[in-house]
């Protein structure tokens, strides 16, 4: 919705409005602030309130880290933070899916579920990249099966046997199905 209210309001006006209200409106509201109690702060001692909450725009900011790669930012903030992580920039299909996810706010299912979808696509992309670079994934090492073999052997063997049984049953079922299909076609 291009014309949505959030696209039409002026940004960074919160303190302007609050200060205006406190200087003007509050004087005309009977009882304004008379029960305010700084001790009544359920966030203490985790938070040492010192008024910085209301200095949102004029705090000392670090220099900006050069933006020399694609970095997403939540649409709930105006831009990237002064520093940011440079691990694994978006790439390929998973990157395109992530790009779409970041068009939505963190309050939406679309944002998070699309990111999870991208994560799963990324795993397949990772395997393809490995093979491209001559790296053969080694599940024995990468899935920690070595540790399972050492410390949990009977359960590990049980799971391996179950998996083998299911795969064999699946293969036999498919073979039988295609055989039946061939027989029907011959008739």
């Amino acid at each position: 919705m291009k014309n949505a209210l959030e696209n039409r309001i002026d940004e960074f006006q919160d303190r302007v409005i609050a200060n205006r209200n406190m200087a003007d409106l509050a004087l005309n509201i009977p009882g304004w602030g008379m029960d305010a109690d700084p001790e009544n702060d359920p966030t203490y001692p985790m938070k040492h309130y010192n008024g910085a909450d209301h200095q949102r725009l004029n705090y000392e900011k670090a220099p900006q880290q050069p933006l020399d790669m694609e970095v997403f930012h939540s649409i709930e903030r105006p831009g990237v933070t002064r520093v940011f992580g440079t691990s694994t920039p978006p790439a390929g299909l998973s990157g395109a899916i992530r790009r779409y996810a970041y068009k939505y706010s963190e309050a939406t299912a679309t944002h998070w579920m699309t990111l999870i979808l991208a994560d799963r696509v990324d795993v397949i992309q990772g395997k393809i990249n490995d093979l491209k670079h001559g790296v053969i994934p080694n599940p024995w090492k990468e899935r920690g099966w070595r540790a399972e073999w050492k410390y949990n052997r009977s359960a590990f063997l049980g799971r391996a046997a179950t998996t083998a049984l299911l795969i064999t049953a699946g293969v036999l079922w498919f073979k039988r199905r295609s055989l039946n299909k061939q027989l029907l076609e011959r008739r």
Partner: protein
Amino acid sequence: MNFRGPFQIRADRNRPEPEIKHPMDAIVRVTRSLVCGSDLHLYHGLVPDTRVGMTFGHEFTGVVEAVGSEVKKLKVGDHVLVPFNIACGSCPHCKQELFGNCHEANSEATAVGGFFGYAHTGGGYDGGQAEYVRVPYADVSPTIIPEGMDLENAVLLTDVVPTGYQAAEQAGIQKGDTVVVFGAGPVGLLAARFAWFFGAGRVIVIDELDYRLEFARKFAFAEAYNFREMKDPVVFLKKTTDYFGADVCIDAVGCDATGSTLQNITGKELLLQAGNATAFHWAVNAVKKGGIVSIIGVYGPPWNLVPLGSIMNKGITIRGNQASVKRLLPKLIDHIMSGRINPKEIITHRLPLEEVSDAYRMFSKKLDYMIKPVLIPPRANV
């Protein structure tokens, strides 16, 4: 360490070394690194935007190898413990010592602070299960390890000790209170131990693993019970608290809980909610009317099935946050150096970094009675 997908981790010798990207950065050569229970959420594929190729690890110590042009306090050669929070030190949140909620450390999610090695939902930084790490805002949180402090205690101060402490602190424990801690993992054990520091009258730990419950009895001086031996843990807790409920409940489990089939299917199999919220559900139901529930277990950002009606009707105060490590360090360093607590007792396994995939598997499956594993990089002692 190279994440290749859920349950797949590679010890990769061909990772590029990190570089200074910002004048306030430092590069640290890692000397010790821990695997955290919250790393398992990444390992299990529960945290959105966890990209293949990332390096995890947010609990580490290291030696400063290089500094950016604007780093004034740290110098090359300093041996530092690096809090898991990346914090600018000057935004309104940092100014109020909410270092876990910095406004200038995570572009990608406003719901989460910036953390080392915690997906792009945590800011997209590579972490400390590596030989070298880029440390942003190096003058703010990294702290020189005090002389005489054991290195394993130092690395535990980067997350698990402050996190356990804050779980008890934010629970608002009053002298004589009955405190129930759900989860006997490293954070739960420390939360239980620290509950006494605030004057608890009774500390009860609930878990499903007998070896961890036994450890809780010894390390945290707690009453410890296995919920698998109960028909309904909430009824048990009500009965043991005069049918009033505990004064305080601490959820030190988070989204990887067990104990409810419905929560397991919807949270961990179908991902229709941010993991399994059974511990929180029990906490809300087991706390007294007007009680406090402290959440320190990690949940993903979307949502969870939780009993909101009970929270309102019982007048429960819920408090949670990522630990503000820098705020708590002076107090916790004093507790350790004075001998009041020796957190390294929770470390059960010491493994070379090259065996990182085994460490994750063992921690995830609770193999070999693991409680807390430490990883030692090959160049730790250079």
